[in-house]
């Protein structure tokens, strides 16, 4: 096989892996949109907040220490202990559940039956609030996240595939972290699909998404479902935060990963869990292959805009996205 062909395959595999990471972020958006019709602008910040909280707990950092020190003149920063990753993840999840309850209690329940744009605006406010709280709670410095995930290319795959091409081909590069992310994403998607299709809560969630008032009239607790859904989105945000945070450290730019999820949502549809994965894969492969084949000729750095262009192209032919529900409104 020619080296260029092998390089293209390598780029494609890495595109698929990158697509999975995009999909992890997109899943959180889908969950909330599916259950409440809200486009949650704060999803990226939730990933940041979850990752910040996880590192803070693992390192035994005192929350709000800067604030406490400024008010009381103390110099406390750490409790002096470290928390194992598994326990820290569980504690973080509990905080995300509390966050979900707080969002519902203080914001969402007051906005039942409001226009979607009002709900969207509320999530913009939520994003700024959460970013500020995260800063105040855990500080702004970059934190190293080490939950034991493997990093770097797989030597085994490199060695096994090195003989496929000439001496200029060094075997396929596949990041071990991306492989782990793929497995986790697959488990997550299967779990979420089963939950949405086959459980009582999942069906209630879908009923709420269709019509708040109708769901209420048949006895579904809107409060319970919304807390549940925001908790699930918080869990997905935590997973995305761990994966992306392991790559770059946990820092405030982590919230910008939401930008990578938007074209995935446009392409896969806002209401489909498998759509988020398929959309992620198409965007991931598409942008990487375009960069590989055309990028160099037009100055490179094509990935950001190409992802949106690809999504727009799909929208022309299928406005609801590949897997989105077609909305039919009778007049």
């Amino acid at each position: 096989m020619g080296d260029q062909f092998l390089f293209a395959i390598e780029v494609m595999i890495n595109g698929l892996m990158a697509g999975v990471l995009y999909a992890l972020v997109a899943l959180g958006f889908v969950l909330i949109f599916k259950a409440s019709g809200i486009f949650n602008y704060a999803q990226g910040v939730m990933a940041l907040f979850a990752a910040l909280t996880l590192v803070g707990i693992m390192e035994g950092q005192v929350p709000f220490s800067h604030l406490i020190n400024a008010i009381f003149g103390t110099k406390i920063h750490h409790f002096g202990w470290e928390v194992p990753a598994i326990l820290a993840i569980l504690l973080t999840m509990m905080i995300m559940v509390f966050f979900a309850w707080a969002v519902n209690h203080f914001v969402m329940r007051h906005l039942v039956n409001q226009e979607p744009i009002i709900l969207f605006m509320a999530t913009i406010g939520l994003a700024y609030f959460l970013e500020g709280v995260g800063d105040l709670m855990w500080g702004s410095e970059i934190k190293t996240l080490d939950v034991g995930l493997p990093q770097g290319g797989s030597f085994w795959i490199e060695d096994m595939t090195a003989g496929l091409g000439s001496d200029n081909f060094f075997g396929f590069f596949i990041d071990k972290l991306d492989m782990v992310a793929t497995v986790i994403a697959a488990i997550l998607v299967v779990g979420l699909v089963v939950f949405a299709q086959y459980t009582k809560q999942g069906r209630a969630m879908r009923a709420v998404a269709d019509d708040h008032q109708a769901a209420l009239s048949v006895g579904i607790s809107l409060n319970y479902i919304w807390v549940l859904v925001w908790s699930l989105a918080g869990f997905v945000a935590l997973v995305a935060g761990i994966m992306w945070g392991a790559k770059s450290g946990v820092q405030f730019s982590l919230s910008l990963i939401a930008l990578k999820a938007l074209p995935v949502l446009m392409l896969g549809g806002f209401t489909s869990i498998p759509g988020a994965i398929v959309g992620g894969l198409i965007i991931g492969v598409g942008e990487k292959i375009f960069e590989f084949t055309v990028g160099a000729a037009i100055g490179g750095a094509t990935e950001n805009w190409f992802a949106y262009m690809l999504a727009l192209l799909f929208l022309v032919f299928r406005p609801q996205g590949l897997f989105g529900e077609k909305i039919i409104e009778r007049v």
Partner: protein
Amino acid sequence: MKKLATMAVAAVMAASPVMADLVFPSLSYRTGPYAAGGIPFADGYADYFTLLNERDGGIGGVMTRVIECETGYNTEKGVECYESTKGEGSLVYQPLSTGITYQLIPKTAADGIPLHTMGYGRTSAANGKVFNNVFNYPANYWDGASIAVNHLLDENGGDISGKKIALVYHNSAYGKEPIRTLEELSGKHGFELTTIAVDHPGQEQKSQWLQIRRERPDYVVMWGWGVMNQVAIQEAANIRFPMENFIGNWWAGSENDVMPAGDAANGYKALAMHNVGTDFPIFADLQEHVIDAGKAAGNGDQVGTVLYNRGFYAAMLAAEAVKEAQAIHGVMDITPAMMRDGMEALSMTEERMASLGMANFGPAFSVSCENHGGSGEGKVQQWDAAAGQWNTITDWIASDQEVIQPLVMADSMAYAEENNVAMSCGG
């Protein structure tokens, strides 16, 4: 009668002389995606002036005052900060952002307030004949590109012809700054240059590093900022690119950039326009008068880090320019116009830095009307992951002025022509 008395007291109070102080605005960014870089710089900048107030009673007997304004590294907010603080008697602006700098160049020129862009901003502002009130000493981007190449020349016995160098850059005006210089240097030294752009913010760089893995350049030079740096270092480690052949510029060379990659970042190099660490006598004074006294801007744990020292160094250069201005004009409470004169007359000798307790902290240089850019020297530092510290591994390396000066002249002249700037020296 009572009303009249109140009005009289108010009038007397209004007519009383305001307590004089030397005002240094700090356009900081303690929030947002780049806060991790903005906080230590702002702390270092503030702490130096606090030290002068606490230890020396200010500069020449006049107390200093730092007014901080949060920009969030956002250009619009930066301009708002400038507008809201310039009326306070601000002596010099250090915007800490190339985007804000470009917006402030015409504004500060109109308002007669000097602008200091240390290692960033508009490179051709080094030509003081055109950019009368802008200073970018001790070094600029083009110096940085040349210093990186000169370091590689030193490492290769003066010959890098045939070598492949890849520039990984932030796809912005900032990131593109070194390209022209590197192209010129490529022609001069015969190395092959590949430019690889990374889009903002740079969280996903798989394509770029797969390209590097395919093309196997001998060296990678990086012009990055923020999360782009951390991801690039991690990706370089992932593809097992030799870290000692990977050199970042001085905005890709802080502790923030290497810590997330852990041991994998060991050996990574970066340019430096000043020294790191606390092994300078002034830091003992800082500990005594500022940190232990509870007057530090932060909690003191950033002292000695790259970006803290940069803020500290920037403040020191501003304070020394004030001293020059006071000496020139014989006035202690100087104006922004006097500050400009002080900056243009600044001479940072070895002796002067030693007398400040900062011997060899930065390069020795002097400023003139023709040269607002300083000596254009820099060092190379290398990350020791086990010790968790940067070590400077070279002495000051001079940039190739034979290549850079014509570029500075061409760009500044084009600016002068476009904007009808009358070239002059002095005020």
